[in-house]
């Protein structure tokens, strides 16, 4: 029993941390109507920036990490100007294709700029585990989970209770409507990408702290996509619950089902859930249901 609870606690923490990556999907969609398939690559480049400015040029992390975050903001602004500003008002199909092109473009750029080798990621969060009664909680993941929950609450407040955030809802609904209401779509897209890039850099700190970083870290993006979809692409808080559900499910599957399926069930579970969500509740748990009128 204690084992099962321990497994669930681990799954919960991992799921919450992954939901931070999912939130970066949601934030971009929620404020600019762009499904960014290249989020994993954005995370990878954020992580590599952090590596460069801490271990790479030997700066203390208190200086290096802020510089890396500024670089992420710069990258987001470049992407907005070069890519997504010309595509404002284009069909979702075109924008989706652009994000796919961005995926291979950024992966190539990361490989050209940093090379394909594996690097140690700086230890920014404490290692080890705290014991609470009979249970153990990894410090890195627990801090990450608390950080995720607080960031999500902050973003929820921003999107639901500030004028600026509510404006973004119009952009997420329709670019032309937003423009005709006097909402700057350019600004919304820029804000979206800055938030997305910074959030995924923060997520990379939590996920990779004291681990290794290589080009395969980009796969994290694809793992977080089912969470974003289950929670609903427009709901920041939904990602939190979805992360918890998928994290716990994955952990239980990896302990109790994987021995019989060669470790497959936990890997494909999120994607099976994703297909199930699309079949039965396409808008996710808390997403907006789009009603079409002729």
């Amino acid at each position: 029993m204690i084992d099962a609870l321990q497994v669930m606690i681990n799954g919960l923490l991992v799921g919450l941390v992954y939901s931070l990556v999912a939130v970066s999907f949601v934030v971009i969609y929620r404020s600019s109507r762009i499904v960014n398939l290249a989020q994993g690559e954005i995370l990878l480049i954020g992580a590599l920036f952090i590596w460069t400015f801490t271990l790479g040029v030997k700066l203390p992390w208190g200086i290096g990490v802020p510089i890396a975050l500024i670089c992420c903001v710069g990258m987001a602004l470049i992407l907005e100007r070069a890519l997504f500003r010309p595509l404002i008002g284009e069909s979702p199909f075109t924008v989706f294709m652009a994000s796919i092109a961005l995926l291979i473009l950024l992966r190539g750029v990361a490989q050209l700029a940093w090379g394909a080798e594996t690097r140690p990621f700086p230890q920014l969060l404490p290692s080890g585990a705290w014991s609470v009664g009979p249970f153990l909680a990894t410090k890195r993941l627990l801090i990450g989970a608390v950080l995720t929950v607080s960031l999500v609450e902050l973003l929820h407040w921003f999107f639901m209770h500030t004028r600026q955030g509510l404006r973004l809802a119009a952009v997420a609904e329709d670019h032309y409507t937003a423009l005709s209401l006097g909402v700057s779509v350019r600004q919304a897209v820029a804000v979206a990408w800055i938030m997305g890039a910074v959030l995924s850099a923060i997520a990379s700190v939590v996920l990779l702290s004291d681990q290794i970083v290589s080009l395969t870290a980009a796969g994290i993006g694809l793992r977080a996509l089912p969470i974003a979809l289950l929670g609903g692409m427009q709901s920041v808080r939904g990602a939190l619950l979805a992360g918890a559900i998928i994290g716990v499910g994955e952990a239980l599957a990896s302990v109790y089902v994987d021995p019989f399926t060669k470790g497959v069930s936990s890997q494909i579970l999120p994607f099976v859930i994703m297909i199930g969500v699309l079949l039965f509740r396409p808008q996710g748990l808390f997403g907006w249901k789009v009603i079409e009128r002729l």
Partner: protein
Amino acid sequence: MLLPTGVRFESFATEGRYIHTWPQAMWLAALLLALVVVPHVMSLYVTGALTVMFITLMAVYGLQVTVGMAGQINVAQSAFMGVGAYAAARLSGMDAPFWLAIPAAGLAAAIVSIAFALPAIRVKGFYLALTTLAAQVMFPIIVLALPSEWLGGTSGMAVEPIEIAGRMLSTPLDMYYFTLAGVLICSVGAFNLQRSRFGRALCAVRDNELAAEVTGVNVSYYKVMAFFAGSLFAGVAGGFFAYYIRYVTTENFNLLLSIWYLGMLIVGGLSSPLGAILGTVFITGIQEAFHAFGGALLAAFPNLGGGLVFATSNVILGICILLALIFEPRGLAHRWSVLKAAYRIWPFPHS
């Protein structure tokens, strides 16, 4: 369409033809002749590259059906190709002849794709792309985990060579003609599909789902069938690939390749099979030119590492797709038709 003076039509069927005048027929014959002669003139490397290009073209034809005609995004074309390749490999292991194995490969991929296209009944737009993404991610995981006596597991599967009338197709030249025949059949299929009732229904779904539904097109059915038809091409391409490479592993069917195929289609133009041809030829040309150039570059700077060529070609393709999306969404096919019209009415600026 711009036609020379004196070409007239007496029935709808004649107007629907692709070839109206004898110069068009001559050009087509010249192209076919050139394709037959090329391997005798060019090096073995070029022959091999062309063979792979033909196989790629079959897969891109399939994407043109799903993405171009029906407007459904598919980022799993390479996984569906993999399903076809594994099916062909498995059947060839059971001594099935190629004329059975390749259609079966196509069918296997098409049936698998239906499972992932089913959410199409409920959702539209990018959501559907995510189910195909799930297919692409799950494909290697599942294949590698299945018992190794089924699909070879991590070590992959060997494929028996093709035997036609007691003769083994083993040289690159044989495989070139074999895939050439395959791609010609696929071309006939792809070009005719577009002007069939089925193709027009897919275009209606792409242009306006609600309007299509109102005019009596069963949107859910045609969305699923778009995936079926598109993956049929992918499976056939996979079958040819299995026979060409003679050894099937999951590494040959990854997400990046799916994106490459999609990129070829976007650069070429989504609206017609001609776009698939132009895009595949253009991107393969760039890739091969870069390959040749990159080889020389690597020889000059050996410390750059082998991943350089791969990374740079990803960057170049990414830029190509983005340029096409921003500046010419109709792709090279549109540029080609502009060029053709300008040639036909020269010296007048416009008709």
